């Protein structure tokens, strides 16, 4: 048996941690409820509201972006529970004692607790929204919004969601409790939620280059934040915090 024991490379290690996080998320009623609300209920309600706004592309796009971004709010809460909550409850120690690489633990938690479920919920939400919206406005549907703009806004919203999680995690990483971290991360959530609304209007009235420019800036900010978060969140820091 001892011969089989070995430190896993980064990717398989990430996958092991990610799978556990996903399972933990699915077993947590609160998280599942939040995902269901953000992924299904909101899109349905919003789509019904959007039906009356056909002919107003900015409103439709604004609503669509919220459908895509909202699941990341739940994702951010899950990420805070996965990182700060585990530190708070003292369950992190055993995980850090394994030969898993820092990057595997960090990436596995981030993907499993936040990105994969948020992306899946966004996809469900988008599908539900499009189905309902198209059904409810059969005459015009989404044709009022140029296809290129639609794709740009979907991409932009998803990137903004990614950014919200990683910025929130970076800001909340020094908090002692999940509750404290949640309070701190409010300063990230609100600007992103309103920011994408604003962007929807701006993107409609400007060239595609503007949307792709914003995306590029966001991607660079995400990379920088991930790098910073991984540095802030390391084995030693996490262990010192657990006492």
């Amino acid at each position, binding site marked *: *048996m*001892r011969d*089989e*024991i*070995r*430190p*896993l490379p980064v990717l398989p*290690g990430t996958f*092991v*941690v990610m799978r*556990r996080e996903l*399972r*933990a998320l699915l*077993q*947590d009623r609160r998280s599942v409820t939040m995902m269901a609300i953000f992924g299904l209920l909101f899109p349905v309600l919003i789509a019904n509201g959007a039906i009356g706004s056909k002919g107003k592309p900015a409103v439709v796009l604004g609503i669509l972006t919220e459908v895509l971004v909202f699941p990341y709010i739940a994702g951010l809460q899950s990420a805070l529970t996965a990182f700060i909550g585990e530190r708070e*409850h*003292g*369950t992190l*120690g*055993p*995980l*850090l*004692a*394994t*030969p*898993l*690489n820092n990057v595997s633990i960090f990436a596995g938690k981030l993907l499993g607790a936040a990105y994969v479920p948020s992306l899946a919920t966004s996809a469900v939400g988008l599908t539900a929204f499009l189905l309902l919206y198209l059904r409810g406005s059969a005459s015009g549907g989404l044709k009022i919004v140029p296809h290129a703009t639609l794709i740009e806004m979907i991409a932009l919203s998803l990137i903004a969601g990614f950014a919200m999680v990683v910025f929130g995690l970076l800001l909340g990483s020094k908090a002692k409790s999940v509750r404290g971290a949640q309070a701190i991360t409010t300063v990230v959530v609100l600007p992103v939620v309103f920011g994408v609304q604003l962007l929807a209007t701006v993107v409609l009235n400007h060239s595609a280059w503007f949307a792709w420019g914003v995306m590029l800036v966001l991607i660079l900010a995400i990379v920088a934040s991930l790098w910073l978060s991984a540095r802030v969140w390391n*084995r*030693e820091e996490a*262990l*010192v915090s657990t006492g």
Partner: protein
Amino acid sequence: MIRLEQLVRTFGTARAVDGVSLDVPDGSIVALLGPNGAGKTTTVRMAAGLIGITQGRAWIDDIDVVKQPAHARARAGLLMGEANLYDNMTLQGYLSFFGEAYGLSPASARNRAVELAREVGLSDRLTRKIESFSKGMRQRVHLARALVNDPPALFLDEPTSGLDVEAAIEFRERIKEFRHERRSIVLCTHVLAEAEELADDVVVIQRGRIVAHGSPAELKRSTLGERYRIRLAKGLKKFEAAFKGLPVDDVVFNNGLIDFRTKDPTTTNPEIVRRLVAAGADVISVDEVDRTLQEAYVDIVRGARDAG
């Protein structure tokens, strides 16, 4: 085999661990004792490859902890304090997850989980969620998790903390079995009776430095010397004069019993008896008083504190 060589760890300007060296051969238990904040946990975390080593070197099973921390962690089992577990997982899921984290394939990890559950007496709980487990059972899960990689080196930090008497006894019996399995064990504890019962060697750490090192029997004899008790036939009179000028400490008179310490019993005790007899005392017996490790420990720690 665990080997630590002049380990130093600093946090900012503070030296949490300052030149700790020790060897833990296969099949032996070394207890790390010391007050809170003495540097025990930091030493264990460095030795197990969890945190960096500022200076010095460490090996687990001949693997250099500084150069290959992940490989060192793969050879170590670590049980830290209270059993905080993933409550919403089943025992099988929990142990399998850690098996996979140590590099086992999913199938091997599942088999290992079954094996470990049997080993810690929780076979019938494999599919139950951990949240339903009692404290003793949780500690057994914690132990099973620490053994998931069948580690040649085990670091047990307060393993019986919070357990009831029966569960603690059971746990200590299990630790004794590890010795027969040829594992090297470092045990951090505040329960000195536990250290006395289990440890082959005891290391006392204070302010990051080793202030005493030896077998429990050696430590009990060291520092302030052995304690003796003289029993007199009549206990009313004190014989302070019999001890004047002799190398003795802590002389206590109590109803015909005189307790004292000396580092030189071979010459001091006969002289005391001669003086007592000359002063008219009827000496019934002179006995060596068995000191507990706790008494020795308190002496060592106070002595080290007084020495600055």
